[in-house]
Structures are given as C-alpha cells and as structure tokens.
C-alpha cells in the first residue's frame, strides 16, 4: 500500500539538511505552509536558500524562519510589503542575499523545472536591468530573454485536502504556487487541512496528482472553515476578528 501520509509536521520536515534549497508556496499569507515552516524552524536546518513569491509577512511563517537566521538567500519576486519588517531589517543589515525574479518568470521557471524544459525564451523583463547579462533573441519580431529552470531540494506546500497517494486539491487563490512547486522539487512535503480516503477526491478535479508529492500531513481545518463550509470570523491574517481587534498582533 502506498501511504505518503505522515503523523505530524515534525516528521514531515525531517531530513532537510543545512544548505538545502527549499521552495515555499504562498502568495503573501494565502497558501503559505505555516505549520511546516514552524516545524522546519524547530527542526533546525540552516544556511537555506528559499524560493518563494514574497519574503515573509509579520512575525510568523517564513518571517519567523528568517528571524531565526536560517536563510542565506531568498529568490522571490516581491519581498517588500507593508508587513515584511523581518526581511527588511535583515536585508538592510546585509544579513540576507536577495535575488529578484519577475513573478511570471519565477512561475514559468519553476514550471519548466517540473516539466523537463532546459530553458525558454521569455518576453518578460526584456530591456530591463533584471535581464542584464541574459541571452536575448528576437523571434518573429518579438524580443525575448533566455530563462533557466529553478529547481529545489524540497518544496513545502499548503493544500486543502490530500489522500494517501498525495493527490491534492487547493482552496481559492491559496492554490497559487503550490502545483508548480510540487513538480519542481526532489522532495515535496504538503500540509493539508484534512487527509481524505483514497477515491474521495474526484479524479476530474485533482489539481496536483500524487506523482509530485512525497509526504502529506494533516494540520487541522483552517479556522475560517467549519467542516468545509466558510464561516468567516477572521481578518486577512487568519486571526479571529475579536482578538485581532483587542490584541493587535498574535497568531
């Protein structure tokens, strides 16, 4: 029997060595695999290269990993946000390396790694400083620059539901980088709200087939859902509205 499920987040992130390249799904907080990142912080791996769209928000998740000084370099499209104070401080102090990649190139380069493409001519960034030094070519009158795949040793992904074969479905815009990152890493580790019995995901609607997934851990239902139904009652950070109003900041 194939069983990719693991009992807890600690087990899910075991064996990630120092110096690894780790992809992390998420666009801002949506789809960020916070429980896996917390487990990675506890696990202790350092000198990491992170591939993600952003460079962390607030003091949790990726930001907490950065604050713990575990990240040598981050490859992302948009590090500077209103709540990216952890990254901002490290960057200004020269304590983290940054590689900026236009978001569409980031996505397509990750997809290329998963799909076995050696390199591709992209229309994005042509004539800008982010394309300096890259091979350029005009094809049928349009200008392109050559972009290479981005691979990773590990991908940490957050999905809604998974089964023991690793088939996944996502929720709304929390899907974002999950499916392509799952395809581009040697080992893909996924947190889901719930592990469902094999066969209960409709094969027409599986977004990430299990072939791309190595480990799946259930972390419990997100608090704005109740048995799959949206109940709200949170702010955009996912905090209950009452505590958000009274406490200011805490997860």
């Amino acid at each position, binding site marked *: 029997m194939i069983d990719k499920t693991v009992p807890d987040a600690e087990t899910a992130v075991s064996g990630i060595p120092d110096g690894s390249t780790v992809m992390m799904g998420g*666009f*801002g*907080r*949506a*789809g960020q695999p916070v429980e896996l990142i917390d487990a990675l912080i506890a696990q202790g791996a350092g000198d990491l290269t992170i591939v993600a*769209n952003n460079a962390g928000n607030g003091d949790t998740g990726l930001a907490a990993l950065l604050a713990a000084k575990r990240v040598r370099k981050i490859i992302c*499209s*948009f*590090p*500077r*946000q209103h709540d990216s104070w952890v*990254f*901002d401080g490290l*960057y*200004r102090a020269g304590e983290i390396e*940054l590689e*900026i*990649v*236009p*978001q*569409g*190139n*980031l*996505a*397509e380069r*990750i*997809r290329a790694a998963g799909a076995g493409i050696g390199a591709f001519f*992209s*229309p*994005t*960034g*042509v*004539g*800008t*400083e*982010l394309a300096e030094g890259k091979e350029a070519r005009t094809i049928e009158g349009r*200008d392109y620059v050559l972009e290479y795949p981005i691979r990773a040793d590990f991908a940490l992904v957050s999905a809604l539901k998974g089964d023991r074969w690793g088939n996944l479905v*996502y*929720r*709304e*815009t*929390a*899907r*974002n*980088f*999950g*499916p*392509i990152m799952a395809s581009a890493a040697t080992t893909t580790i996924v947190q889901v709200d719930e592990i469902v019995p094999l066969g209960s995901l409709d094969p027409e609607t599986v*977004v990430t087939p299990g072939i791309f997934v190595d480990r799946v851990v259930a972390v419990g239902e*997100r608090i*704005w859902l109740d048995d799959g139904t*949206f109940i*709200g*009652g*949170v*702010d*955009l*950070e*996912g905090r209950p*509205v009452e505590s958000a109003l009274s406490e200011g900041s805490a997860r």
Partner: protein
Amino acid sequence: MSTRISRDELARRIAADIREGSYVNLGIGAPTLVANFLPEDQEIILHTENGLLGMGQAPDADHVDPDLINAGKQAVTALPGAAYFHHADSFGMMRGGHLDVCVLGAFQVSQTGDLANWSTGAPGSIPAVGGAMDLAIGAKAVYVMTDLLTKTGESKLVVECSYPLTGVGCVTRVYTDHAVFDVTPDGFALREAFGDNTLESLSELTGLTLAAAKEN
C-alpha cells in the same frame, strides 16, 4: 493654474474606455479604483495574477476570506463564472496576450512607450518587482494611470525614462489628472485634455512636443 481631475474622476474616465466583455487586470494601488466605476449593467471580467478570473468586489468584514485575495493582498470575492488556476497558468494568460487591458501606475512613461514603475533605483531601497514586468508586456492594451507631474512638479511623461524600466515600448495610453495621451510612433498624442488644459499648456508642463491624437 491648470485643471486637475481627482483620482476617482480619473478612474471613472478609464472605466469608460473599457468595453463589455473585456478581460482586465487592474494593477496594485490607484488602478484598483477603476473597478468602482465599471458599469454595473455590463460584464467585464477582472483577472488577478494570483490565480483568479472573475474577481468581485471587497467582501464585508464578516466575509473576509484569507484564501481569497487580490494581487495587492486585499480581501476580494469571486463572481459566479469565476475560475481559479495556478501561477504558471495565470501568468501564461498574461504573457500569452489574452488580457485585453491592464491598468498600471507609473513613475515615468517615455514617448516611445517605455514604462518605469517598479523601482526608483534609489540607493538602499529594497527592490520588488512582483508581476509588473509581466503585466507591462502581456496585455493587448496597457493603460497607465498616473498624475502628470510628480509632487515636485516634474513631468512623468518624458523623452527617456531615468528610472529603471519595467517594460520597453509597452504603453498604449496614459491617463493623467490633466489629460489623456496616446503613445504613437511619433511620440505622445493628446487624446483628451481635461478642463482648461490645452495642447500648448500641456506641452509647457511636460516640456515635450505633443501632437493631437487621430480619431480611432
């Protein structure tokens, strides 16, 4: 001295140029205001690059869903007829030329249609490009929404951009608080001047040679 219309008036003006059935991406910041002025009796489908076509307006406080956000990471809703997809598919839509219109902010637009809107190049600033470069080269029509002048009175319409470029020759039209300009092979052409602005007064403000736009 010269007539300036408000942000909301400018958003309304841009909305008036977007036809029913268009697929539209509204960039982060001021361009999102355009959504408020799209006619309610027409169907215009909004794309957000983080994986949604058919984006609706902001929810009320009880319906904020952290999984459902726009590119500016604000809470949004999904309309009947919406579709979710992953990031490579979403940027494929943009880069593949499937969007009819995108509306972007700008630091500068050159008379050859170069756009600078992602970085001032200031020392010590943290670079962050997001999807700006993909949007700039991807949509069939790239509209820029901006003040004509910086806070210190310099024209954002320029002969050549001094800020780092977002895209080369990509801007279709510039909607400013003073006037609307088309980007043409001969430089900026005045499409519509608001209030008492004229070709002459705008030429003076921008320091550029402006033509009158041809009808289209």
